[in-house]
């Protein structure tokens, strides 16, 4: 496409197309959007994050990532839509404008580029990274079990051939380490939202332990409001709660780590659907999914803006 206005948001795209979209978005909005390279994957692909900022230095920030599990294609597609939405609305939407007056937004659209490329070329159902595992013929680590929060616990697999394999050690995956280093070095991330599919859930920590987080009540209230906002658009029903009480024990998960770093507003979404198409959600549902999810994201972002800590 010649511009982000002619980009087809209601279609799934290749890695190259998404990376080209990012460059177009930056070129069209140089005063708002920049592209950061935060690392390289096992197969030496660059890992990019879009930064949306009206200025300032090291402002408090919101992080959103999509596509950490590569086969969850509606998430990367939604991430592309979010990027365009931020650019479209950053002046005319009063909530978004006021968020960006005080905070930056970081958006990592393709959090697992090797896995995503593999789903496009070899195996549509690939979930993990593509790192080689010593002593095994199997490839890849579950990037949502590789974080240093309850790492190696019973909510992950020790089997390299499993889709929930935790990896040889925490942060072994460059895709995970890149985010860990970025968040640590930034030091001022106030909300962290990691987006998956499917199941239509909004989840908060913990996944690795049944001990409730100290901020459980607040996170639950935010979730209730976010889900209500989401449902208001198309009636899509979501459930919400902590990871371990709502789905199952998951050890070494992303938002458990981010919460333990002090990022209070740590959430995970599981987008559409609940089991008609699963990971093979038709492209016609990309835009409605992104639209409704955006409403929930705004609730979280507005709350973060209004409750500095």
């Amino acid at each position: 496409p010649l511009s982000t206005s002619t980009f087809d948001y209601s279609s799934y795209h290749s890695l190259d197309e998404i990376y080209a979209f990012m460059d177009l978005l930056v070129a069209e909005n140089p005063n708002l959007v920049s592209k950061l390279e935060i690392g390289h994957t096992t197969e030496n692909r660059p890992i990019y994050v879009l930064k949306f900022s009206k200025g300032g230095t090291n402002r408090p920030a919101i992080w959103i990532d999509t596509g950490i599990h590569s086969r969850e294609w509606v998430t990367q597609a939604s991430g592309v839509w979010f990027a365009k939405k931020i650019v479209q609305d950053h002046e005319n939407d009063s909530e978004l404008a006021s968020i960006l007056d005080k905070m930056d937004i970081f958006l990592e659209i393709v959090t697992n580029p090797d896995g995503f490329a593999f789903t496009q070329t070899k195996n549509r159902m690939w979930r993990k990274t593509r790192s080689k595992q010593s002593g095994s013929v199997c490839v890849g680590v579950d990037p949502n079990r590789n974080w240093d929060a309850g790492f190696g616990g019973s909510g992950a697999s020790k089997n390299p051939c499993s889709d929930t394999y935790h990896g040889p050690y925490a942060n072994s995956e460059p895709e995970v380490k890149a985010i860990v280093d970025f968040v640590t070095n930034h030091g001022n991330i106030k909300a962290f939202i990691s987006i998956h599919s499917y199941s239509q859930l909004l989840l908060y920590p913990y996944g690795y332990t049944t001990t409730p987080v100290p901020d459980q009540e607040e996170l639950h209230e935010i979730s209730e409001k976010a889900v209500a906002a989401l449902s208001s658009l198309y009636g899509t029903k979501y459930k919400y709660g902590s990871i371990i009480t709502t789905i199952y024990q998951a050890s070494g998960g992303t938002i458990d780590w981010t919460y333990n770093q002090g990022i209070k507003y740590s959430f995970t979404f599981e987008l559409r659907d609940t089991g008609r198409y699963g990971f093979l959600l038709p492209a016609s549902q990309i835009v409605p999914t992104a639209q409704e999810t955006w409403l929930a994201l705004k609730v979280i972002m507005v709350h973060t803006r209004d409750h500095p800590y």
Partner: protein
Amino acid sequence: TETFVGHQVLRIIPGNDKELQKVQELQDLEELQLDFWLAPRGLGYPVDVRVPFPSLQPLKAHLEANGISYSIMIEDVQALVDHEQMEMFRSSRS
């Protein structure tokens, strides 16, 4: 390229602890090459599993023999994948 010809996605809903245990044990049977889209998490919660063609009849027979109810969530995985590819190609061309 991995193809999914003949694959189906089954939805299993364990109704009691014994059924749940049986479904959980399926995760350890690597030879079946099951791909759990939604892993087992508790009674009454759906377990979605993509089943390769060679494992379909054995798995269905196993579930039926143990009285575990299931439904076919996706009857033809490859058809959906092909449709998705076509849509991407069409968009790319336009």
